[in-house]
């Protein structure tokens, strides 16, 4: 079964590092003054970003390398190399995952499986993305500045490390649903929202079905980075296929660049968008008790797009409960 209830896994703490353009999100822990972050290249800057958040999280909680049982890392780079290089500095077992912008949810699912039914174990989930690194890898050279379509999204620069434990804390991971890869035949690389929306809708539908719940069961359904275009399509898709009307959905991608939306177009994207918004806004508001986070990722590979294949998408859902 793709959906499962989890016992005894809690989110204890997190550490957020944001890039220069993400200043508008208050509640972060550290900010980068520029995209290089003291390194020679953007790729190395992203490695440093991950190491800074992991180190800071360990220091904040007064933990040593021995106290952590595993690190799970995810990012957008080829061969998940940023996370792998970042983890090479630590004497901690490491798993690298890739499901594009759904990497955070996938990491949480693995962490749940590793931590469930244990007594005193801890794990770190780290995810990051860097705007200029992603531009260079998936799109045009950075200085080229090609005009962008209104459907395109803007990769967020940030890194978030999350500490998961068996100790009881206010945030409990309640259940999860593993998504299916869905390909609706869309090959427009500048319209990621349209590619990811059916995958997100399918996972939400199956999650509600498997656990026998209604959409109103959740105070908020938080989708990752569908953007303005994708959110609209998600609602239409859900209504047409399952007759579900989503009223409590918030998309992290739309909200992140509310104040500074030059060049942003449809919204923010990247694996870090979901944890960034979840920890800096949703959980800080203390308004929501039952939260469903739905990470959506477009499994975009420039190689296969050049070979005229359409782009598949994946989505994983994790349900959180805030105990107070």
């Amino acid at each position: 079964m793709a959906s499962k209830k989890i016992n005894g896994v809690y989110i204890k703490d997190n550490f957020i590092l944001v890039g220069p353009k993400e200043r508008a999100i208050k509640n972060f822990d550290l900010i980068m003054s520029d995209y290089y972050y003291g390194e020679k290249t953007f790729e190395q800057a992203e490695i440093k970003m991950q190491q800074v958040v992991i180190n800071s999280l360990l220091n904040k909680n007064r933990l040593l390398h021995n106290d952590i049982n595993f690190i799970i890392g995810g990012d957008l780079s080829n061969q998940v190399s940023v996370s792998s290089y970042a983890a090479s500095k630590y004497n901690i077992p490491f798993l690298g995952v890739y499901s594009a912008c759904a990497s955070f949810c996938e990491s949480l699912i693995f962490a749940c499986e590793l931590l469930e039914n244990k007594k005193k174990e801890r794990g770190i989930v780290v995810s990051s993305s860097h705007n200029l690194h992603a531009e260079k890898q998936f799109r045009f050279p950075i200085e080229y500045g090609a005009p962008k379509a209104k459907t395109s999204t803007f990769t967020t620069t940030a890194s978030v490390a999350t500490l998961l434990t068996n100790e009881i804390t206010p945030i409990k991971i309640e259940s999860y649903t593993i998504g299916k890869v869905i390909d609706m035949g869309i090959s427009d690389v500048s319209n990621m929202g349209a590619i990811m929306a059916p995958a997100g809708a399918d996972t939400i539908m199956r999650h509600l079905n498997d656990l026998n719940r209604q959409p109103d069961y959740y105070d908020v359904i938080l989708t990752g980075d569908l953007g303005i275009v994708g959110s609209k399509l998600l609602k239409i898709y859900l209504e047409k296929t399952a007759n579900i009307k989503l009223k409590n959905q918030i998309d992290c991608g739309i909200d992140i660049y509310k104040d500074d939306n030059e060049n942003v177009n449809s919204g923010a994207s990247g694996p870090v968008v979901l944890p960034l918004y979840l920890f800096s806004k949703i959980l800080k508001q203390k308004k929501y008790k039952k939260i469903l986070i739905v990470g959506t990722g477009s499994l975009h590979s420039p190689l296969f797009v050049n070979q005229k294949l359409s782009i598949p998408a994946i989505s994983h859902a994790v349900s959180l409960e805030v105990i107070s």
Partner: protein
Amino acid sequence: MDKYEYQKIVKENKPKEPKLKNAIVSFLVGGSVCFIGQVIASILQVTFGMEVSESYIWLCIITIFIASLLTALGFFDNFVKKCQCGLIIPTTGFAHSMTSSSLDVRLDGMISGLGMSFFKLAGSVILYGIISAFFFSILGVIIYG
């Protein structure tokens, strides 16, 4: 929902691009770049007493230099974003595409980085430019003798 139905919905919900505005902006910007080029060529012809064909070669060198310098200093991408395709189509865009892709790989080594990625965007322009020039010159010989 099947693929075709979904693709139809996607098409309907796509935000509209201001095509007319983009075309006018591109036309005006591209036109003024060409106008400036013509002015430079005329100055070269008048003040330095150059032949027309020689002045065009110098004009190319000047525009390529200016565009590459502005790319390296980080201004050109901002102009391109605002001017749509007006700056990409003339020689300025060609120089810009080479400079921007070489800036990306400047630390990846001389052979595996710079050498292999220099013509990442401009390579197809050069290749198909040469091929079409070859066939059109044959056509020219046949028609005009």
